[in-house]
């Protein structure tokens, strides 16, 4: 087949069910992505294209135009099928295996790009000084870190919206909980780089005690000059018994939270240094209330995150 300079041989999205071999001349293949950005590649003598179109009827990924007069060998699907009919049965299996493997690789790449772009998205959101961000600007920024498509990026944003970390509007997004985004990013960073679990990840007991603390603080808490909220040990112990099915609050169960400085203990004034530890010697517990709420929310989100990323991707 001869094709004159400037003529378009096939368009992106066409399903010609043919395979093309460039015999003579040069063509240019242009690929337009969903953001209308155009990528090009040259197809000179010996180049081939349309292999998935002939084997499985896949649409062409690019528009091909002749830069000069060209000679192209076009293999129609009918010839492919006739030739395959003459081959041993296992040859068909080999070709079908290769195309399947290609589809699996493509899908793996898409999923991996999706999952691995999530931290970059969190990074940008965590570091942005504005609470209102234009989606266009965010996508442009994200391109510096990943080549994830717009559609896939939007899917990631939907996950964040599901977790109530952001709110999406038509052209913008609003950061709803900047602190939590930062905590989540830090946790992923520590997990990936240092292969460690962040100390923000709490055990179920720790979560239960902190939940009880926040509940007690909401009802009977006292605001301290440093902004923290203080709760009497007696109130905390009573609330623990009530909301944790009769469980008794002990110093042992609260110890790790003190070590992590999530709770601070104020000993009774009469207490001697040697008397500590012992819950009976602690008059009040105090904590940064907002921080605790964020940590509890973080621990609610975190176990769901990996699954959500895999399912959404």
């Amino acid at each position, binding site marked *: 087949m001869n094709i004159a300079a400037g003529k378009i041989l096939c368009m992106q999205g066409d399903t010609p069910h043919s395979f093309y071999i460039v015999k003579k001349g040069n063509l240019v293949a242009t690929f337009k992505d969903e953001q209308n950005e155009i990528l090009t590649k040259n197809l000179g003598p010996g180049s081939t294209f349309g292999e998935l179109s002939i084997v499985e009827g896949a649409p062409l990924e690019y528009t091909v135009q002749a830069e000069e007069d060209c000679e192209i060998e076009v*293999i129609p699907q009918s010839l492919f099928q006739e*030739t395959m009919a003459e081959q041993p049965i296992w040859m068909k299996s080999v070709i079908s295996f*290769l195309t399947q493997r*290609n589809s699996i690789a493509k899908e*793996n790449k898409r999923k991996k790009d999706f999952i691995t772009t999530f931290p970059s998205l969190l990074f940008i959101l965590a570091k942005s000084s504005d609470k209102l961000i234009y989606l266009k600007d965010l996508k442009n920024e994200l391109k510096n870190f990943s080549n994830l498509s717009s559609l896939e990026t939007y899917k990631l944003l939907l996950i964040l919206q599901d977790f109530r970390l952001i709110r999406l509007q038509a052209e913008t997004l609003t950061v709803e909980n900047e602190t939590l985004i930062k905590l989540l990013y830090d946790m992923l960073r520590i997990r990936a780089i240092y292969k460690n679990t962040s100390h923000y990840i709490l055990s179920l007991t720790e979560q239960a005690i902190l939940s009880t603390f926040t509940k007690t603080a909401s009802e009977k808490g006292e605001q301290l000059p440093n902004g923290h909220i203080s709760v009497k040990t007696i109130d905390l112990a009573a609330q623990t018994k009530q909301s944790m099915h009769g469980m008794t609050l002990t110093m042992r169960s609260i110890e790790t939270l003190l070590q992590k400085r999530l709770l601070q203990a104020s000993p009774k004034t009469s207490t001697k240094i040697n008397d500590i530890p012992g819950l009976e010697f602690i008059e009040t517990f105090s904590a940064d209330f907002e921080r605790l709420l964020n940590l509890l929310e973080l621990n609610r989100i975190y176990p769901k995150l990996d699954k959500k990323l895999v399912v959404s991707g």
Partner: protein
Amino acid sequence: MITGDSRKKIIPPTCSHVKAGFVVSSPQDEDKKIILLNEGELVALDPKANNKVVFKIHPGNLVGVGALLEREPVRYIFQATVDSVITIIDDECMESELKSLPVWLLAIIKAISARTRRINESIRAAKTDNPLASLAAFCKFFKEDEFLQTKALLQEFSWLTKTSIPAASEALKALIRRKLVIFQGDKSCLSIPNPDLLGIFVDYQKAKDMDKSWPPFCLTLQQKRILVLLSTLENGTSKDATDWIAFFKEHNFEISVADWLQIQQFEWFTEKGNHLLSLDLSKINYFETALKYEQNIKGTVK
């Protein structure tokens, strides 16, 4: 059209009957082969996981294509669970079969294999083509008074973009050379003197990647003077096009229609309605900063 050779020289595949428990292929085998299961059942056992069953192979399925055609390592042991009938296509047989295929069919097989190989390589590759621009984009998010640990910064960037540490270190060196990033003390720490400048540098790099000219470095002398004049005005100063041209004339700038159109492309003004064009000082500052640090951006700073 090439239709292929005759099938005379073909070495036929071997058909074998194997007993239950027979290992038909394993990672230790020197000869790579494709195994097509005709009857019975095979299982794939993972030798690295105490020979745990990974998957089952049913009649009509085949294994070993990657090993034979792509020389990929064989990961599993394939063992018959019941008496089975298999077809073995070894190197010689495959080669003779491929030789008999029409050239175009061989090209299709090669193209699909190459496509998969490229995808698999891209999964392992860095997520950006320009690590320098990417690192600059990463660094611009940090505050100018922040002291950053060099090693931790490189690790974090590498994790986000899958850029290798050596490539990230090279990119960092290029930013240091441009004085866009500064080492502190014994190089274990660094700081970003002007995060906005890094943002400008990223835009310059992007234009360079696309072989596009970058507006701040394409200004004529008159345009540069106009830029300086505009920088003295208040943000949001608004006039229609005729008034802006008259304003420039008042300041001894002869502006042709072509000049005016070009200035508008620089986006120094934003349309405000009623044909009014409002001065965008942030854009003016952007151009001024780019010009001030041209040597840093271009990498010619001493």
